């Protein structure tokens, strides 16, 4: 699973570099998230702006990734494309995540001044 991690303005930003988080890669995604977030800032942003599809397995893996971080750290989601946002909304899991339009907005910077 192609994913990368950088630090930006005190946040850890994890970028998914694939177009799908589905049943075929859900376990790989969860494992990669665990590796990338083993240590680091308490605020983690998962950049989903290249992901155009998630299924229920992918959604479960993102919830699992949030649980792996524990209560002392927080997982934010950024850059959800319409069909990905739909899966969160229809399952009401949009209520349990902090969801931001973009990474820039998640870090508190306005997109237009970035």
């Amino acid at each position, binding site marked *: 699973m192609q994913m990368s991690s950088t630090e930006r303005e005190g946040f850890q930003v994890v970028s998914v570099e694939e177009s799908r988080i589905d*049943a075929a890669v859900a376990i790989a995604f969860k494992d990669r998230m665990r590796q990338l977030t083993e240590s680091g800032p308490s605020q983690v942003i998962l950049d989903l702006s290249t992901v155009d599809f998630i299924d229920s397995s992918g959604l479960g893996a993102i919830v699992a990734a949030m649980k792996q971080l524990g209560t002392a750290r927080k997982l934010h989601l950024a850059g959800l494309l319409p069909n990905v946002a739909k899966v969160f909304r229809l399952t009401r899991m949009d*209520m*349990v995540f902090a969801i931001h339009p973009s990474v820039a907005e998640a870090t508190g910077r306005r997109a237009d001044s970035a």
Partner: protein
Amino acid sequence: MTLPTKLAIRFDATEMAVRDALAQVLAFLRDAGLDSDNSGKAEIVLAEALNNIVEHAYCDIAHGKVELQCTRHPSRLEVTILDQGKPVPVHVFAKRGYPDTDSALPDLPEGGFGWLLIQTLAENLTYQRVGDTNCLRLTIPLLVAA
């Protein structure tokens, strides 16, 4: 030019073959004139139905096959999915509720979303076991601009 209205494909019951099948369905729906909202909805429903077959019906059966038929009508997509895996227990089709989003972090659900998505987005769900074959039929309503 006549737009395609029917697609029938047969593929291996594996997660990677489901990915390829969904790509074929999306190409078919695009050629059939569906916008991304409608085809996205269809992709979610089909992904869940097909992955259930891979993970449950064929969970300990190698070399299973799945057959998918889609017919595009003006305001709906009719879908039939056939497989020769294990019969689906009746309780699977019970109406699903929403997950408990007020749970403490360690108790948040990591599953149970698949049938909820199918039941929310699809209509006229019927399941029949005919001989050694599971036959799932459903309709996906299409929002067509007036």
